[in-house]
């Protein structure tokens, strides 16, 4: 007979949990910003959440969104705002993806110190555009084009 013993994971470090809460708050601000910019453009937004499971942080929920864009010649076009992780290394403060539908094209938003975001392409080349309403709207349309 074999018997499996599984160790329960160690309780998350309170300092890390506080950082995680701060990260979730920050993603919430981003989602709210995108909702506002999208609404101003006349795009419909659906707010939801994404379940994230991170090493040493456990499982938690973070805000997410789906922005419906003008359909053009396709049955549907949209952009998903998907929080990926807080701990991504390289000095960045978390990652949120913007993914076009149905193209599945994607850019990554990497958190900067403070409340800023760096836009990174899939080839890991930074776009070097400021994170503004205009940049977001252009990106959203390009990602789903």
């Amino acid at each position, binding site marked *: 007979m074999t018997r499996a013993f599984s160790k329960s994971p160690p309780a998350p470090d309170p300092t890390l949990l506080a950082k995680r809460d701060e990260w979730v708050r920050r993603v919430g601000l981003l989602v709210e910003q995108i909702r506002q910019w999208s609404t101003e453009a006349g795009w419909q937004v659906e707010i939801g959440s*994404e379940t994230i499971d991170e090493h040493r942080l456990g499982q938690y929920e973070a805000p997410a*969104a789906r922005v419906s864009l003008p359909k053009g010649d*396709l049955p549907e076009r949209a952009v998903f705002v998907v929080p990926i992780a807080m701990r991504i290394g390289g000095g960045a403060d978390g990652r949120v993806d913007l993914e076009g539908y149905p*193209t*599945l094209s994607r850019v990554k938003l990497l958190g900067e110190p403070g409340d800023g975001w760096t836009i990174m392409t*899939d080839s890991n080349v930074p776009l070097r555009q400021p994170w503004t309403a205009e940049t977001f709207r252009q990106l959203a349309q390009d990602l789903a084009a």
Partner: protein
Amino acid sequence: MRGIMTRQQEAHQRLRRIRDEFDASHYALRRAEARWDTEWDATTIEYRKKVTLGQIRRAFDNLDRTFILRLFAEFEGILLAYWQDALGRQTSPKIFVLINRIGDSCPIPVSSAQRDATHEIRRYRNSLVHVPAEAVEPFTFGVCLSRLGKYVSYLPQDW
């Protein structure tokens, strides 16, 4: 956010997974190349008995093509499943036929522009596995993903 997936969302998820594996392979190969001269742990030494730096570079150079083949195979699987499950057909036609016939049967028929764009990817994929009779325009993995994703968006949400 995506909740319980519709069949169409599942189909997109299949394509998305290939994209994510492409990214993971890109990362692993770049890292292996960059650390070739500095990494000497036991696992690395074990791998170096069978993998050379030249092989790593070749795998990296061919990464787009390798993953385009996988992506297209997944796309073909999605269309064949739709053909048999949604349209109730017992046959397994060639992908050329599937693209056209399914395109006609969708609730909003696939536009001729999107259909042509999909056939361009099909021709490029064919050129990777057979010697092409004529020159074929090459595409990056990202362009292939985008065009196949667009075609799949014409399928109904559920079937």
